[in-house]
């Protein structure tokens, strides 16, 4: 079980994680928690962004249309950060740390700035990598929120449940992602 697992064992482990999550609670999702994290910070500086509201379905409402969506459920989770979905995402980091300590694959010092494929193409200067990846992060989370989920929620959890949205999302992501990767990094 040391190092990186092959596709068979790795697929089983990954599948098991998605299955037990839906068996015990609900399908796995991650990207919403970026909104919740933003909201928690915003809420520190604003008295109006999240308010108790007995007329709202969740008991909370927001002056922001997105946080007020679906009966204010995002507003509620911002007001109560110790909720299932937010703690789940924090625990993921702990789980990855545990795996890395217990014989999982290791990143070299150079890998920690940029993966090898990047260094071969764009050189060793990490600044270009950091700036590019920052803007890629903006795109990824903006896209995930527009889509209503990310690789975990739409692609894995979605297709596991045979939801149409999961297939649509995967088509959109790979139709642009594959040519983009080939254009940026080439095939060789």
């Amino acid at each position, binding site marked *: *079980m040391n190092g*990186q*697992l*092959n*596709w*068979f064992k790795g*697929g089983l*482990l990954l599948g098991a*994680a998605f*299955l*037990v999550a839906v068996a015990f609670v609900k*399908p796995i999702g*991650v990207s919403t928690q970026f*909104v919740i994290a*933003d909201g928690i910070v915003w809420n520190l500086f604003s008295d109006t962004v999240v308010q108790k509201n007995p007329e709202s379905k969740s008991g909370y409402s927001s002056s*922001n*249309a*997105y946080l007020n969506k679906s009966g204010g459920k995002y507003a509620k989770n911002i007001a109560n950060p110790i*909720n299932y979905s937010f*703690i*789940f*995402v924090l625990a*993921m*980091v702990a789980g*990855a740390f545990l795996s*890395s300590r217990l014989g999982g694959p290791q990143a070299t010092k150079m890998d920690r*700035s940029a993966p090898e*494929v*990047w260094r071969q193409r764009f050189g060793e200067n990490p600044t270009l990598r950091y700036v590019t*990846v*920052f*803007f*890629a*992060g*903006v*795109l*990824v*989370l*903006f*896209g995930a*929120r*527009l889509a209503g989920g*990310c*690789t*975990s*929620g*739409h692609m*894995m959890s979605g*297709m596991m449940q045979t*939801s*149409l*949205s*999961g297939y649509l*999302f995967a088509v*959109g992501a790979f139709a642009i*992602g594959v040519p*983009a990767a*080939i254009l*940026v990094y080439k*095939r060789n």
Partner: protein
Amino acid sequence: MTILLAILLGIFFGFALQRVGATNPQNIINMMRLKDLHLMKAIFFGIGVSSILLFLLMAVGVIDAGHLSVKSSYGGVIVGGAILGLGFAVAGYCPGTSLTALADGRKDALFFVGGGLLGALIYTLMYGSIQGTWLFNKIAGGKVMLATGSDKFQALLPMIPGTLLALIIGGIFMLIAWKLPDKA
């Protein structure tokens, strides 16, 4: 109790992502440029196995079908998926793997997470002005799945028994995982 489950299930998922190599952007970039499909095989296999077990266990009543949560289908799912796909291919990170990559000590993941927080904030602020547009027009009725099995969500193919359909789709996913070449 739910918080304890959040901790245990979150640790399990993070552990799995790290161990399968998904926290390494090299693997994601090489998957997207069709160079090394090990991760794609693992993803297809994982979806296939979990889908088959999910529908079987729901059919025998071990898993409560009320736990399913099918997301809505609308134009923005494809457009958003495409925008995500671009960033995913260049960075080699998605939201979940960027956070777990922090545990590998990857500094570029930190910049990705920072950008992600900004992207999520931009969307939060923009939502009010785009919510009425075509991007949110429903496709095939919105919250739909292919297979029957849930009372909450409509099935697109109700003429086929849900468990059988899920077995077939899951089987196809497993077959693709098995047949895809490891290195290209």
